[in-house]
């Protein structure tokens, strides 16, 4: 009885895992097949001959996927740096500086968490157009590079756990607020900063609707937009399209497998996205 029950549980878990992994494996397998093999053999067949033509065509071809990867990474890194710097400063103010209006402003920050991102797309588009920044690299970066109320919230919680004595001791040694931040607060907050780094990079590598709206043409395409445009341009040419999805998915799979524990913790403490 006990034995069959355990076997049953593994069977259910295994089927779930197979169902979860199948689309990833199908995408990767298909990306390395020739068009002939794709048309002639089972979708489950191993790529034979194994070809990287699709990947090369996607990266260097008219979709300019290689460029899209660079644009996406650069935008994500700039957003990350901006958000971390701004949020660390703001979170320290909320956690440890007693200034008038602190309570009210913190409530304003919390209430912005209720604003659905989809709602901001239209007004941000209008603002970027008026500022002459539509279809520019900066339109991908600016709206996200300053504020992340979410990051401020998580960092504030963390900063409140840092013993005040450490900060007071540094103060007595003549450290100013920036010294305290750089020498004490940030080094003690590495885990939460690592969490925010993962969340920010992943969500901006994956982000789609804003880049789709604010950019036109191949110049400032990000990876997701390049994948979508490749799919509509080469509709039905699935080996090529799966090469694009594989390129969009595999970097994150690798990142996830390397930082598995940090990722799982990041999701549970923050509930991102």
């Amino acid at each position, binding site marked *: 009885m006990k034995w069959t029950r355990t076997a049953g*549980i593994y069977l*259910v*878990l295994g089927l*779930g*895992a197979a169902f*979860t*992994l199948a*689309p*990833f494996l*199908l995408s990767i397998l298909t990306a390395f097949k020739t068009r002939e093999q794709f048309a002639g053999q089972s*979708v489950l067949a191993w790529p034979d001959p194994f070809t990287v033509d699709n990947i090369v065509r996607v990266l260097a071809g008219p979709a300019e996927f290689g460029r899209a990867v660079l644009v996406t990474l650069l935008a994500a890194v700039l957003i990350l740096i901006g958000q971390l710097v*701004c949020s660390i400063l*703001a979170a320290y*103010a909320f956690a440890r*500086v*007693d*200034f008038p209006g602190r309570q009210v*402003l913190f409530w*304003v920050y919390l209430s*912005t968490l*209720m*604003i*659905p991102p*989809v*709602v*901001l*797309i*239209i007004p*941000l588009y*209008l*603002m970027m*157009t008026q500022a002459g920044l539509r279809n520019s690299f900066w339109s991908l970066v*600016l709206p*996200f590079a*300053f*504020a992340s*109320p979410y990051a401020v919230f998580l960092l504030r919680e963390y900063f409140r756990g840092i013993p005040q004595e450490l900060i007071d001791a540094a103060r007595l040694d003549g450290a100013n*607020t920036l010294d305290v931040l750089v020498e004490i607060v940030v080094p003690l907050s590495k885990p939460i900063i690592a969490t925010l780094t993962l969340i920010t990079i992943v969500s901006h590598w*994956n982000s*789609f*609707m804003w880049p*789709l*709206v604010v950019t036109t043409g191949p110049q400032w395409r990000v990876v*997701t937009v390049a*994948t*979508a445009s490749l*799919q509509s341009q080469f509709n*039905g040419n*699935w080996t090529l*399209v*799966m090469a*694009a999805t594989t390129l*969009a*998915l595999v970097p*994150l799979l690798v990142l996830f497998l390397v930082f598995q524990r940090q*990722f*799982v913790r990041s*999701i*549970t403490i923050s*509930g991102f996205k």
Partner: protein
Amino acid sequence: MASNRRRRHPGIRRRNTVTGYALLAPSLFGVVCFMLLPVLVVVWLSFQSWDLIGPIGFVGLDNYRSVLSDGVFGNSLLVTILFVALVVPIQTLIGLGAASLLTRDLPGSAWFRTIYVLPWICAPLALGVVWKWILAPTDGALNTLVGARIEWLSDPALALPTVAAVVIWTNVGYVTLFFMAGLLNIPEQILEAARIDGAGPVALFWQIKIPLLRPTMFFVLVTTVISAFQVFDQVYALTQGGPAHTTDVVAARIYYEAFSAFDLGRAAVMAVVLLVVLVVITLAQQLYFRRRVTYEMD
């Protein structure tokens, strides 16, 4: 103590004000310019007419009249509610089931958990495109494997459930993680006490664990309802709102209204309605949760 110090040294207070606002300034600039201002702009734009190219002109309530009187937006609201009603309960049940299997201390549980979370961290658009091929009618992986020709995405009766299934597939790992954390947080003494009182595994699950999971359940429901209400990427990849508007969810409608029909005023009205709906849902869920908690403590 802090207030004592403040009263004794008005200089410290002034310095704290300067320091506080100086530290806050860059972040506050972002919050004001890219979150609060856009909310005002979208409300303002909902009273204007703009086609992306020409000048912007005031039209009063025309956009509201036009959006609320034609059936297109009503259909989108209905489709979205149907979508949420399909996705949220099913993924919650599957996630709860998976979590209860994964918290039995069986070897390999961590691996299964990792695998289940994979879709959640990947780009929904890219996964949507993969599923678009898997579900393609003639050369799609699913139909060639089962040897049928089912129009998963172009049959009006199947399209919405199919898109919902893809989204559930994406989200199950996320839901599972939270229920795992919730289940592992239940003190072993409570379970032991219930077992001594003669509770079997079924009673233990429904009468002890589920009630104790209420905070987790609340968090999962709030976040998944809100994200399901805004679904866009998978719809864009799979159906583009079709066939016959059967998957025309609100976020997709806003996008097509603005960037295919070039009617930004109407798109802004829809965005305002979506904002109001989601804020009301969030606040209602908060109130409901508060009441349940105080009830529990009585």
